[in-house]
């Protein structure tokens, strides 16, 4: 658990004796040379733990949805409501934005503005397109009388998919903040750590969307 030990200020004792030097010397030399890299690992690891807890929260919403999916109370079911063309476009938007987000993180590491700003802008546009389609879909459903108050199935649907949409909205705000911070403060180590965390967040949103389009939309239309 060397990420923990790095946070606690201790070295990785398991590596002692792999070369001749005593570990205390390497530790002090290390601190003089590159403390920032280890901080990057600790920050990334901590944010990874947060994302896993976020995934656990989503799994509770998925369990609720799976339990309530048949409770339509005489109202419309997923088969009548879902439009797979929209879902396919949404999926393409999020997948491509996950890809451009990865390109942006490489651009940030190489400190190349064209790559970073270009890829971040593409990520933002694709995320906005996703949100636009999703809000359009939600408004259409509410207008047809299939809002979250219609049945337990629709309550669970709007909670699950809406929570993912809220995460994407927060991610969009974070994306704009990161572009502004890199623009104002440059590729500083602390800013690059935030870019790393943003990339992790955006990729995780895409993983959750894979579960949503499979469990909610594809299985809903097939049944």
């Amino acid at each position: 658990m060397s990420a923990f030990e790095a946070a606690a200020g201790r070295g990785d004792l398991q590596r002692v004796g792999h070369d001749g030097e005593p570990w205390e010397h390497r530790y002090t030399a290390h601190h003089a040379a590159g403390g920032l890299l280890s901080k990057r690992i600790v920050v990334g690891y901590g944010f990874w733990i947060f994302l896993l807890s976020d995934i656990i929260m989503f799994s509770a919403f998925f369990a609720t949805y799976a339990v309530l999916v048949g409770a339509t109370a005489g109202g419309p079911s997923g088969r009548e409501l879902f439009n797979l063309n929209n879902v396919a476009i949404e999926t393409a938007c999020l997948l491509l934005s996950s890809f451009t987000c990865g390109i942006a993180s490489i651009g940030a590491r190489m400190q190349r503005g064209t790559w970073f700003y270009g890829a971040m802008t593409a990520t933002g546009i694709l995320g906005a397109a996703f949100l636009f389609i999703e809000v359009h879909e939600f408004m259409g459903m509410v207008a047809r009388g299939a809002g979250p108050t219609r049945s337990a199935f629709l309550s669970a649907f709007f909670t699950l998919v809406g929570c993912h949409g809220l995460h994407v909205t927060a991610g969009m705000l974070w994306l704009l903040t990161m572009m502004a911070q890199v623009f104002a403060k440059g590729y500083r180590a602390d800013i690059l750590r935030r870019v790393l965390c943003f990339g992790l967040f955006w990729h995780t949103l895409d993983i959750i969307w894979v579960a949503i389009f499979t469990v909610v939309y594809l299985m809903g239309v097939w049944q």
Partner: protein
Amino acid sequence: MSNSEWERDPLYPDSAPGEETFLGQDDAEAVGSYFIGLGLATLLTIVSFFIAISGTTLVWGPSIPVALLVLAIAQMGVHLVFFLNITTGPDNVNNVMALAFGVLIVLLLLAGSLWIMANMNHNMMPMDQIMQMQR
């Protein structure tokens, strides 16, 4: 310990999750990793949609939900490996252990909820009988 490892970081050999830099990997390879991930994820998505839309003309009916679940889990794996750069390398042990614990909790939560609720549904008296008892 090899020379390249020493140059990278002798004491903290871990990688942060999402870190593209493996030992000796350059930027072109990192971009290539994202391209591979994009290609595989697109392929798995298209197959998923195709199976769900074409329905029973292509695949045996009861196998469709299972096939969709398998494709989704495969695509999550693709995302983890090529986008989040979670690997089986020694620099990633901490990240994989945290992920394994998260997956364990998710599975317990999903399986436990579905099991308990199915059981309660099964044991519940039919609604018309409850209505008659209340008269």
